[in-house]
């Protein structure tokens, strides 16, 4: 990839195919390209996902507890979200 997308675009594009994922999944996928970013933290990415849900792009679809007993929330893009991502980011 010669020119990387801004981090927040990359997070949203991760959901373009409609597959559900959680903040850790997003981080694993983007670590190679964005691992050095100061705002590449679980807290910041979880907030971005929760905000996207609040704005109607993503739906919460599953919840699990991770090894440390922390809540993992899984999100998937709904039709509106997929449409927004397709039209505005690519």
């Amino acid at each position, binding site marked *: 990839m010669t*020119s*990387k*997308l*801004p*981090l*927040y*675009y990359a997070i*949203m594009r991760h959901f373009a195919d409609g597959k559900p994922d959680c903040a850790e999944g997003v981080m694993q996928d983007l670590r190679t390209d964005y691992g050095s*970013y*100061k*705002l590449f933290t679980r807290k910041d990415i979880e*907030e*971005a996902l*929760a*905000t*996207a849900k*609040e*704005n*109607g*792009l993503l739906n919460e679809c599953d*919840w*699990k*507890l991770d090894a440390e*007993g*922390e*809540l993992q*929330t899984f999100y998937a893009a709904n039709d509106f979200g997929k449409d*927004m991502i397709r*039209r*505005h*980011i690519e």
Partner: protein
Amino acid sequence: MEAKVETLRNQRRKRFMTRGITFAVASGICYGLYTGFLTLAETQGVWGDWFAGTEWGNGHEALNAFTITFTLAALAAGLNDLFSGIWSIAVCAKNRQLGDFWKTLKTKPGRVMMLCAIIGGPFATICYVIGLNSATASGSPGVIVPIAALNCAIGAILGRILFKQELKAHKVVGIFVCLASAAMIGGASFATMGPDALLGCVFAFLAAFGWGFEGCVAGFGTILIDYRIGIAIRQVTAGLLELLIAFPVLAIMGGGIGSVPELLGAAITSPALLIFAISGLFAMPAYSFWYKGNSMCGTALGMACNGMYAFWGPLFIWITLGVLNIGGMSADYPPLTSAQWIGAIVMVIGIFCIAVNPLEIVRKKQEE
């Protein structure tokens, strides 16, 4: 296990909501501070002579009414917004986001943000400063702030139309309560309203419309753009357009081409420039927390919390120019009236109505 997940989810939802409301309320406070320092800056140095309608600099003639009303508003708005743009870029640099800032500018959401800046900056901010100046001239700077706060209602309605955000009955009631209290806060000043204040109110209403549109479009944009990058794009675009286009055009209309360098030169060499740097410093979180709060808790609630600046604005104008007597005109800025304090409490109740459905709380109590 199920129960634990449920508890954690509830905790998380509450934390997220609280954080969104905190951002939105903080934006209102910063808004009040920015309005206070902007009002202060416009009383200092050469600005004082300009607005007093006296000779200024080394024997320059007094400015005409058009220049005082429109050109100075564009200049003040431009200085304030450009300073806040510089502060916002500094924050991006601290978070090592300058690369993303540059890339975002060239994308579609980045351009939408710039469109918001055109409507919210050169249009609404200049209208706001014209309103603020006219009202100050008539002796009641506080009066236009609640009118500009109408943007919360306009934003919520536009959010409903454009983005199908929910607007349930309790939210509509809350919005009306907020508007009524905003009117109460400004109401005291209406009694002494002269023609200047009326002009101020008209321009404040135009500002409310511009910001209402901006609040719902840009707040929505921050789901695709980090709010710190969003605000940097907004303030730099607004500041540059105001200083490079709006100000020269208005200056030429009011006093010919020669007045462009004259006014700009006097403004940037005046010590008041430092106060514009401070008002710009507060304008940065005023807007960025506004964007952030809106996208975290929905336009209706976010803008209502932000709309509390109907109270914070007059409060900080009173504190900086009245209590602290910066500028030496303390008698012109009397303390807030009891109507204004009561209005503030009513506004908090209105915001509460937008945030939670009072009927649901009653129902839950009955179930217990």
